[in-house]
């Protein structure tokens, strides 16, 4: 079994968080997060999750483009036009509804947004085994500050990343693409 690839983890994280790759790399935490997920769940589970993600992307690309059903390599996938609705459905089918992969994927989302690894539910560890590093824990001192939730709501992490005196009186700044059609 090959070790889970960083690029694949990044690609998974883009689809799970809806933040762009530059934002994720811009936290400086993508590598520590992959290391945390591997330590908490084991490489077998992480590899299966990344495979399922690739397969989901392939489904969305193939169905959208009508190409042959062979699993395209990553470079082809990156170039392919993805149907976002199809991708969403494929992710739900292949990852979120899966007893083994679903809870891990949900934890990866929480990891990016809150900067914390939350322990997997007991029914998961009963079935698939518990790792010593799987307990609820902070990844690094910086992960709280870099949590995507602060960017998502246009706020600063309380007590960190000072935004300037009086800035709290201004409306939050949220990029258009995340506003989901809200009026301004």
């Amino acid at each position, binding site marked *: 079994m090959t070790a889970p690839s960083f690029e694949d983890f990044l690609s998974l994280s883009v689809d799970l968080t809806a933040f762009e*790759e*530059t934002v994720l790399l811009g936290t400086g935490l993508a590598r520590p997060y992959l290391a945390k997920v591997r330590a908490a769940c084991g490489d077998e589970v992480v590899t299966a999750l990344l495979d399922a993600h690739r397969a989901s992307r392939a489904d969305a690309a193939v169905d959208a483009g009508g190409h042959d059903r062979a699993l395209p390599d990553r470079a082809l996938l990156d170039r392919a036009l993805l149907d976002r609705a199809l991708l969403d459905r494929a992710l739900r089918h292949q990852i979120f509804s899966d007893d083994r992969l679903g809870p891990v994927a949900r934890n990866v989302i929480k990891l990016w947004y809150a900067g914390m690894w939350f322990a997997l539910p007991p029914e998961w560890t009963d079935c698939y085994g518990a790792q010593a590093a799987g307990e609820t824990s902070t990844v690094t001192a910086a992960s709280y500050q870099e949590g995507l939730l602060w960017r998502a709501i*246009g706020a600063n992490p309380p007590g960190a990343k000072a935004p*300037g005196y009086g800035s709290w009186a201004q*409306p939050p*700044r949220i990029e*258009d693409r995340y506003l989901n059609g809200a009026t*301004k």
Partner: protein
Amino acid sequence: MTASTINNRDDLISYLHVAMALEHATIPPYLTAYYSIHSTTNSDAAHIIRVVAVEEMLHLTLVANVLNAIGGKPDLTRPGFVPSYPAYLPDGENDFTVDLRPLSPEAVETFCKIERPGQAPSADARLLRTADSGSPVLAFSPTAEGMRFYSIGEFYAEILEGLEKVAADDPKLFSGDPALQVGPEYFYSGGGAVIVVSDLDSACRALRFIAAQGEGLDSGIYDADGELAHYYRFRQLQLGRYYQVGDDPDAPSGPPLSVAWDDVYQVKVSARLADYPAGSELAGVVRDFNAAYGAFLALLTRAFNGQPGLLQDAVCDMFRLRDGFNRLVRNPLPGSDGLHAAPTFEIPAVFGPDPETAPAAGQSAQGVTR
């Protein structure tokens, strides 16, 4: 001694425009080195660079005050105000260029050259002929063609002499609108007290303060307030030791200081937009940062032209620029052998002094109002 190159108010105004560009030109290089440092590491180096960068912002404001006091019009949006790096300093020193570099021995070497003690070997050596090297020199003496200055300190010495001379001939020199002055109620915690300029005496105090805080012209390692000059702050990083009062300039005797040169994002030196893959997400982020920086300079221009209260908003913008800077340096730059991204400070020309039409500084996102 060389004849003065400043003979009237217009000469003074052009010199002060160059001085503003000069004070600003040092800020992107200092910020690039500062933000290249991995967080929680290199606290000594980070602190030293941060203090100097913040004091340059005070100098920029002080020059704007002097310019306003004699009826000039500060403009940080004029084409060429932000140099294209690598750049020669706008005062005309042309034996070195300034790059946007990560923290490194080379960066500190350049910083020392920027802030080096300014006294020319003799009074008539202040103005030197610019080398005919064909290299672009951004500006030099704005009034004497082909002449440059020995150092930033000598550049300011020339302005101080010119100011005294023109003020003696022109009793109405300081007739600028006092409402344009940035006072301590608008600018504080910025590396020293801001000086409101209303006459020759306060103008000279402001300019001498800049020169003394920079390289310690005439005042040795420490200035009159007991503050270490910028040149010597940076020398500490080269010599690995802090200065204390009474030290010889070449032999600091304070506590040792260590720099972890490896705990740094190796950003590409003086990267340009063209280095970023065309159409990539990353190129878009760099472009957005540059645009936000341009909008920030437009905001400062309004602040220096009658709305000093806007400096409060500028502080928030600076924090947003900081976050954007940090995000960029953590991104690898594709195709550059593992080097990292950084702002390129190529400012789009669309930002006039009226930022109503420009995006908000800091990021392209806009405030949500309901």
